[in-house]
């Protein structure tokens, strides 16, 4: 469960203060499917980064599964992130020199899981995203949709409870975009909390709950 209480995130740009997030209070139950929409620059990515523990709020409280994570140091955050949160990016962020399988394997390497288990889990994950025959290809040998599927497999390989996606279809044509969304929705049906940022109203409408953000505030 994600609980945000009066979260503010300010950026100091010169002598100007940008209120990227302005007093956000939000509760997300386990297994929810949420879309986040809003105009460009409204603070959607900032919100997701804070939920992902990649960014620290300027003020406010964040409880993740009833643990106050605003107090944790960087390494503890890294561990919580590794075990609880999967992140899918608009630009995939695959490591170019590694094959699809090796990219998917990376979170498990960081977690210190042994080689055998890693291989088994990668094999399953590759199959789950329908890339069994492309596991040894490097990102530049894969299409955008395939890259995003690799990224999703990587984001879910540690079996996190929360899956965050920042415009996962932003760089894809509508056909592979739908495929990706369907893949994410399947994961959500498996019990994963899913939060997707999108600019596409039709995709946003598929979620059980829509959150609109305007000027750093939630507008319902």
């Amino acid at each position: 469960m994600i609980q945000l209480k009066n979260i503010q995130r300010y950026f100091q740009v010169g002598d100007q203060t940008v209120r990227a997030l302005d007093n956000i209070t939000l509760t997300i139950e386990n297994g929810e499917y949420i879309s986040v929409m809003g105009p460009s620059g409204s603070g959607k990515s900032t919100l997701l980064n804070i939920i992902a523990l990649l960014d620290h709020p300027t003020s406010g409280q964040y409880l993740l599964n009833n643990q106050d994570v605003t107090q944790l140091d960087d390494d503890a955050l890294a561990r919580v992130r590794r075990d609880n949160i999967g992140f899918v990016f608009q630009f995939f962020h695959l490591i170019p020199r590694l094959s699809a399988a090796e990219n998917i394997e990376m979170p498990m390497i960081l977690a210190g899981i042994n080689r055998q288990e890693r291989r088994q889990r990668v094999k399953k994950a590759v199959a789950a995203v329908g890339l069994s025959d492309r596991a040894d290809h490097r990102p530049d040998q894969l299409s955008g949709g395939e890259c995003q599927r690799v990224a999703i497999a990587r984001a879910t390989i540690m079996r996190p409870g929360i899956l965050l996606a920042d415009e996962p279809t932003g760089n894809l044509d509508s056909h592979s975009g739908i495929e990706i969304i369907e893949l994410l929705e399947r994961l959500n049906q498996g019990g994963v909390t899913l939060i997707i940022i999108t600019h596409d109203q039709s995709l946003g409408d598929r979620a059980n709950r829509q959150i609109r953000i305007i000027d750093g505030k939630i507008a319902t």
Partner: protein
Amino acid sequence: MRASDTLSQAFGAIRSQPLRATLIILAMSIGIASVTLLTALGESARNYILYEFQSLGTHLIIVLPGRTETTGGQPPLFGETPRDLTLSDANALLQSRNIAAIAPINIGSAPVSARGLERETNILGSTSALRRVRHLTMAEGRFLPEMESDKALPVCVLGQTIKKEIFTGQKALGQWLRINDRRFRVIGVLASEGQSIGVGFDEIVIVPVASAQTLFNTESLFRILIEAKSKPAMYKAVTDINKIIKARHEGEQDITIITQDSIVSSFDEILTALTLTITSIAGISLAVAGVLVMNVMLVSVAQRTSEIGLLNALGASKAQLISLFLAEAAMLCLAGAILGLLLGQASVMVLQALYPSFSISIPPWALLAALVVSLTTGLLFGVLPARKAAKLDPVEALSKR
């Protein structure tokens, strides 16, 4: 994260940037090669010189007239000689039970001739004991006979070069050799010494010490070479020599005693310092390599910003990021060190082939030191880029693509 995974990830990153890897490895290997090569040269020169000194003779003690404060330094070249060392001084030293042999030495230069061929050369006056003290070997004939040292027998022993130049390939043994205007019968020829430090015995004529004294019309000795009975006896012998000479010189201690030990150890010190100096000069190239490693790693961190942000997002701790980059720097430097050692070894082999009489080898400690030094350089200069990578803000790092 497992150590083996850290290494294989780092290796993967190195392999993906072959140009960068080549550059670092090359710089590091040149540094290591020059350090090992210069160390090898210094060490070998030291060993060579020490060996030469040790071959002068074992338990050797040299007594010089005149007093100097230094031990094992240069004998006094100038300055007054208070009292001459004489043949009877030398003979008196035989009282000491710690002395095995005494060779008084008298030296001067004179023209030598036979059958119309003449040249100027060094004439060395001594006794039969010289052969033992200086470990001389004979090519033909025999050395000076054992006899009273004050008997001026007209016999001489030749060095190889003198024999060649004066007797030009003909039989020298039993022939007469004219020194100044006296005649000496050749009774022996020394074996060639090869290259040796000290007196070149190839270009010398040895005569009995009393004969030399009459030749040069002097009572005083150039020096006295003494062989102690054993190594521990050497220090007792030195005390004995001091006592005996003091008694004979009216209580004046006007001699300088040089032990072979002190010569060897002071040369050892000088040569070790020399080796260290040239090695540390070569070490500068290692420092340059280190700076290059740092720069290339910094560029690499900058290029891989988004990858670092991603690893962060995937749950990498700061320590993991640091160890990934340090492992990269360490592996590159280690590869450079190994290549450098091979290069150094190859140059040593080339030098050895060019100068076969001078034995060069890389001392084992230098091999170990090269590895340790390169690794430390790599880690030291790798820390800054690695820390920079770990400090990156993940959000910012990810926004770069």
